[in-house]
């Protein structure tokens, strides 16, 4: 009675992970020049968020329109560390108060605010990158899920959080760099992150972290918790009356999504070289949902493809037809909802996988209904 869904990896999962690994670790680095590779590295940072959304939204039915908040918090934590490192008294000698970040000096701050101090430590920063978003998610999650706020209300309130944080960051520019963000980041422990070599290294670090997150996500999906999430999405009351504290599961998965987003944000900062409130607001938050939806809201690997594909399309379309980009993106939103509700993964499972299995004569689970298509 061994059931395939109880194993961490089915044959098909292994295949899916392997293909993605080959694409990310071998094909892209070989096919792309350093500039394009860095771009794809940036896209991959959004994939962290999209994978988190698959867990929250696809599996758990919790649609957060505020993932940008967590992405931003992670990114800002990293940016604060890098900014402090870049603001040596020597580099900032022309300031009235050397040794503090330039934007603080422009805003008449004469000393580093106390809550910036810990970000002198890389170790603390690495913890904060995950911990700060998680604590935020925990507060929001406890407040909302304990009171059984869900669905549309949750979406709107998380969206409001994105708006609030953006206004706050912009308004408190002496502490946050305001609308400009935290810019001109240079080195990580003396290692210049702006060189092409560094960017390549960062790409692989990023890809490695993404795979770690994918494995965690796969583990969660395949654990009993993963099945519980699906059960909760469809029959929340039944789960509750089977003796589960539904809220704690939702809080957990929301925090996990926030942690992924925070890591993504930190990697974004490292690869792009700055962090700004435009990554926090409502628009990027919703765009991250679309990456997830395009890939297939039920598929963690799909989320990665979704993030890569949409962003690649955005870059190339806006290079050649900037006017058309919004039309294309808008159309994509509508199409993915109305025509391909399970995104790329759904298309794969319905149309490609059956043919593949017919081709190889194997039985690779093609008969699965699209509604519960597992990864890939």
């Amino acid at each position, binding site marked *: *009675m061994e*059931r395939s*869904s*109880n194993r961490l990896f089915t044959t098909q999962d292994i295949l899916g992970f392997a293909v993605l690994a080959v694409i990310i670790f071998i094909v892209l680095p070989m096919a792309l020049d350093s500039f394009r590779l860095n771009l794809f590295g940036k896209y991959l940072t959004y994939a962290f968020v999209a994978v988190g959304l698959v867990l929250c939204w696809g599996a758990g039915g919790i649609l957060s329109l505020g993932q940008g908040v967590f992405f931003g918090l992670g990114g800002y934590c990293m940016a604060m560390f890098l900014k402090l490192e870049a603001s040596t008294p020597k580099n900032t000698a022309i300031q009235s108060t050397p040794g503090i970040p330039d934007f603080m000096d422009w805003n008449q701050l004469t000393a580093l605010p106390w809550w910036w101090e810990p970000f002198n430590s890389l170790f603390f920063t690495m913890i904060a990158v995950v911990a700060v978003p998680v604590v935020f998610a925990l507060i929001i999650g406890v407040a909302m899920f304990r009171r059984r706020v869900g669905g549309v209300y949750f979406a709107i309130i998380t969206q409001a959080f994105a708006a609030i944080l953006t206004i706050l960051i912009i308004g408190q520019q002496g502490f946050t760099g305001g609308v400009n963000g935290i810019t001109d980041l240079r080195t990580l422990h003396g290692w210049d992150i702006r060189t092409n070599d560094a960017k390549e290294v960062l790409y692989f670090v990023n890809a490695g972290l993404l795979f770690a997150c994918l494995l965690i996500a796969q*583990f*969660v999906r395949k*654990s*009993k*918790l993963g*099945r*519980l999430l*699906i*059960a909760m999405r*469809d*029959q929340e*009351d*039944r*789960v*509750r*009356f*089977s*003796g*589960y*504290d*539904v809220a*704690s*599961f939702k809080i*957990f998965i929301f925090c996990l999504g926030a942690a992924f987003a925070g890591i993504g944000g930190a990697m974004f900062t490292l690869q792009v070289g700055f962090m700004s409130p435009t990554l926090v607001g409502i628009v990027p938050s919703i765009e991250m949902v679309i990456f997830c939806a395009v890939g297939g809201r039920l598929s963690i690997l799909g989320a990665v493809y979704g993030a890569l594909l949409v962003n690649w399309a955005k870059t190339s379309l806006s290079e050649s037809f900037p006017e058309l980009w919004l039309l294309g993106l808008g159309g994509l939103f509508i199409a993915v909802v109305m025509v391909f509700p399970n995104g790329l993964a759904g298309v794969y499972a319905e149309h490609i996988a059956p043919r593949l299995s017919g081709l190889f004569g194997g039985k690779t689970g093609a008969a699965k*209904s699209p*509604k*519960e298509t597992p990864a890939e």
Partner: protein
Amino acid sequence: MNMQNPNFLLMVEGLTVSFDGFKAVNDLSFYVEPNECRVIIGPNGAGKTTVLDLICGRTKATAGSVKFKDKELLAMREDQIVHAGVGRKFQTPSVYEDLTVFENLELSYPKGHSVFGALTFRRDANVKARIKEIAETIFLEDLLDEKAAYLSHGQKQWLEIGMLLIQDPELLMLDEPVAGMSVAERKKTAELLRRIVEDRSVIVIEHDMGFVADIATRVTVLHQGKTLSEGSMERVQNDPKVIEVYLGH
């Protein structure tokens, strides 16, 4: 009639809930003994389902007390009530349609109910054996790998009962368990219930009087949120107040 009888499994006293002034359940009291099968009947809108909702924590009471094994349920969360030993089946079958029968039962298995527990839960031999055992009880042993969505209406009802049984509750509350079943399924369900009652108490809401007579130890008649009559099936059937309510209007 404030009876502090330690032999009662469930003591409901002065239970009241009002929705914007409308008292759906009004100062209701009743007591359930161990191994009793209590059937609650009453006309539509009498508050039957609301009573179950109140006991299992789905609806918050305005006043009163619900004691289960001397523990006050009204102060507890739904999942804590379940862990205390109260199971609840809903009126419309609610099973996880996307999951298989096996997985449905597995999710109800009383282990790994914390976040960490669920992450580290392993499907070991004990779990499998227990699931198999329950599946036999609810006549679904051949359908373990079927998705719940493909079950018949009656089979879904059984599956939901099975999901409760696997937790081995001391008090089981069933809301119209035979609604929408064929005659054959009804008979099987009655047989199932009789077996269940052997080692636990059950509260059943039911309209089908034949079925009620078949299983009930005692019957409580609710009317406008209050107890109208209580006792054996025979006594209740002959109570003029009950006849008035059912036939008079």
